[in-house]
């Protein structure tokens, strides 16, 4: 087993996951805000933020889809060692991780059912940059409006139209993290 596989997890999982979760929760509760998150040092190409999100939320109960470059031996063994999460395709995943282009098309993911809209995927989108500019966001969690660098508009508008069904997004870049729940209007 590679040394890289064994390392890069949370040194103190119970405490570091509390901090990482609060960052994710703040991001999901306040769409457009950029939170700092750290603790994990995952193998390339995963960002520290994406690795920390996965360690905080994933385990044997959460099938993960690795899209594109994220689907490599180093990431697979690292995730298996630190989370035990089963790998799957987009149709049955609870979490997906990859670049925006690798994650497409969004129609491949579960969006929940009318009785259980929570049974939907959360997509972790690795981004080349994350900044409070670009698309305008409004909706729950946002006082007036917020701005966030999104990879595009239309996909998120179509997703919003599915509410209360739909996908939820976490955007990661280095140690930064933002989120876009299905409830957010994007323009």
């Amino acid at each position, binding site marked *: 087993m590679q040394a890289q596989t064994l390392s890069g997890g949370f040194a103190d999982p119970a405490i570091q996951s*509390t901090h990482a*979760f*609060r960052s*994710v929760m703040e991001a999901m*509760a306040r769409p457009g805000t950029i939170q700092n998150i750290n603790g994990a040092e995952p193998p390339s190409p995963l960002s520290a933020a994406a690795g920390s999100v996965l360690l905080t939320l994933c385990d044997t109960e959460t099938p993960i889809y690795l899209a594109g470059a994220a689907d490599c031996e180093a990431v697979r063994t690292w995730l298996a060692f630190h989370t035990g999460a089963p790998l799957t395709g987009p149709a049955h995943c609870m979490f997906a991780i990859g670049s925006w282009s690798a994650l497409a098309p969004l129609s491949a993911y579960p969006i929940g059912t009318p009785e259980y809209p929570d049974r939907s995927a959360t997509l972790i989108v690795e981004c080349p940059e994350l900044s409070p500019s670009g698309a305008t966001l409004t909706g729950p969690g946002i006082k007036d409006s917020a701005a966030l660098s999104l990879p595009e508009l239309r996909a998120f508008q179509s997703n919003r139209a599915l509410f*209360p069904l739909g996908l939820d997004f976490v955007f990661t870049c280095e140690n930064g993290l933002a989120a876009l729940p*299905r409830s957010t209007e994007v323009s």
Partner: protein
Amino acid sequence: MTDYNFAYLDEQTKRMIRRAILKGLAIPGYQVPFASREMPMPYGWGTGGVQVSAAVLTPEDRFKVIDQGADDTTNAVSIRTFFERTAGVKTTTKTTDASVIQTRHRIPEEPLTEGQILVYQVPIPEPLRFLEPRESETRKMHSLEEYGLMHVKLYEDISRHGHIATSYAYPVKVEGHYVMDPSPIPKFDNPKLGDMAAIQLFGAGREQRIYALPPYTEVVSLDFDDHPFEASKADHPCGLCGAEDSYLDEVIVDDAGGRMFVCSDTDYCEARQAAGHRGKDAA
């Protein structure tokens, strides 16, 4: 060192609760099922709220627990002690100093701010339960936004009493979609639910449901054009601090059956008295 997990729950359980909280925030007002765990306290002592608090607390938090507005009831004290011991968090009774507040039956009078999280203990999360006992049916009603029965029930109140008699757990509509039970807070507190700066999380232990309101969410109390919602309270000032804007409890003060009205939020009342405000019954 302690021989239990941080905040009592094991890591896998906390991950499951954390995932439910995130879906709850993404779908405001929708009840997310979760696998509630046995806690070292009976149901009715807020095991749902305790599990949600356990999943969000960090060692740096300052934790406050209120029970019907008071910090010093047996229930509030035991939950506070539980997290002092299992999570090592500092606790407080001051609303303004707390980062996480667990509550039963009240929203603090002091407006909450962006850094704060309010965790509600919920006995019955399903607002339609008394109208339709079957979970499969209530889920369908929520998905179709079939809330006619709810309005009929409130309207029956009006025809019987001349006004809407429901005064606790008064149902609200969230972002124009889900009807939600705000837990048994007095309807006086309902207007604070909407547009709140803090994150609001709701945990029902026995019923195994978590739901949430992100900050600045639209929350509307159900009502009728001819009978608009009113956030009523006893028509008195507080006997101790003179507040005219706070929710009051009527308390018996002597053997002769003497009564007075005092703030239900003890921290609010004490802070006002410390600032020199006096009511007519103040010593």
